[in-house]
């Protein structure tokens, strides 16, 4: 499907990513240009069709002349940019980020309904995480099974907020939000009430489909059975933005 009609006065810039000379529209972000050109950049919070969050830091890239790393999802391209997406330093940081996600909560892949279909698990393998070097926090988190169709397991939540954004921006219900800080931070439904008691939830299941891990799943699924389908998102997002 073609992208929505855009204004013709957007300029084109040229830039260099991993030694390749590329051109892009100046209103594009680095991650969009990379995805268009099949340059792999890992990400967890970024999802095409949702607003940019910039929280997971997995898409950090190196920009020549810049001391700090930039998140590819939240940085627009500019003329003459020289970008490296997969240096040894970035690989080391990405591996550490994924390890910290595993250490923070309780992602027990072997007994997860999303086993084999999980973006975190996939990224761990891609980033060479064969073990976690920091001690596990071993903190206990709740499971909310009050919704008749879906289940929320905070143990497996990485706080990417895809659920919050899809519910607000695409479904228009804004059932989901975030409360608390640091390790107490968690996603909530309505005013931190059980999901099943929510007045605003339409049970559309978009949050479940965009969740990258086994945090939001369908009831009644067993180990490895939760396969998610995100094909609806770019289509609905285009229609939303066209309105």
């Amino acid at each position: 499907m073609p992208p929505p009609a855009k204004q013709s006065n957007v300029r084109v810039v040229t830039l260099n990513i991993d030694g390749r000379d590329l051109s892009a529209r100046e209103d594009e972000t680095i991650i969009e240009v990379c995805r268009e050109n099949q340059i792999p950049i890992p990400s967890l919070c970024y999802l095409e069709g949702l607003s940019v969050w910039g929280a997971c830091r997995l898409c950090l890239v190196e920009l020549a002349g810049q001391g700090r790393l930039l998140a590819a999802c939240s940085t627009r391209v500019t003329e003459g940019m020289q970008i490296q997406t997969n240096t040894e330093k970035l690989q080391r940081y990405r591996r550490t980020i994924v390890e910290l996600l595993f250490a923070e909560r309780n992602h027990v892949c072997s007994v997860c309904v999303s086993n084999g279909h999980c973006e975190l698990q996939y990224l761990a393998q891609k980033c060479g995480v064969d073990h976690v070097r920091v001690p596990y926090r071993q903190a206990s988190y709740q499971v909310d099974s009050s919704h008749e169709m879906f289940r929320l397991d905070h143990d497996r939540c990485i706080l990417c907020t895809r659920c919050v954004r899809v519910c607000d921006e695409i479904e228009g219900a804004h059932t989901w939000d975030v409360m608390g800080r640091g390790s107490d931070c968690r996603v909530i439904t309505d005013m931190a009430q059980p999901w099943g008691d929510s007045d605003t939830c339409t049970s559309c299941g978009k949050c479940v489909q965009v969740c990258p891990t086994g945090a939001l799943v369908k009831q009644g699924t067993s180990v490895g059975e939760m396969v998610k389908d995100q094909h609806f998102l770019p289509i609905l997002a285009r229609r939303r933005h066209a309105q």
Partner: protein
Amino acid sequence: MSTPPKITVATTWLDGCSGCHMSFLDMDERLIELVQHVDIVYSPLVDTKTLPDRVDVGILEGSVSSEDDLEKALAFRKHCKILVSLGDCAVNGNVPAMRNHFKLSDVVDRAYRDTVTIQPQTPTQGVPALLSVVKPIHGVVGVDVFVPGCPPSADAIWYVLSELIAGRIPDPSSVTRFGA
């Protein structure tokens, strides 16, 4: 053509389900080829009762959950040149570590008192004391090779052993992952 000397391998399971060892046996006919290159000097799969002084490769399945697990992990580290964490329990605690969210006394009561109707009692003799926190192997001793998976496939174990036999350190991420 002279055959290269065999490498010695010791294995044992700590707090695991023995599934990783079963996956080891799933190498099937490749086990015949393996014994051309490997001497299994200590393992639940063989008769030897003591760990030899010097072993080339030590393979540990399961997490460290009891004093006995801890002793075995320390002994393997002391006597093995290369130590391999085999499977998710050894690598990240996996299912055994799920009890870490509860107090140890609550866990023991759940198993031996709350769910028992006749003469509930907590065994203290002939069983090793449980540690309060379940840890992966590398939480107590240094580990050289990590092979995640629940269990790692026979192919993954074959790859890891083949690399070790060839004198290389394998990269298991190319063949297995958490929960595989």
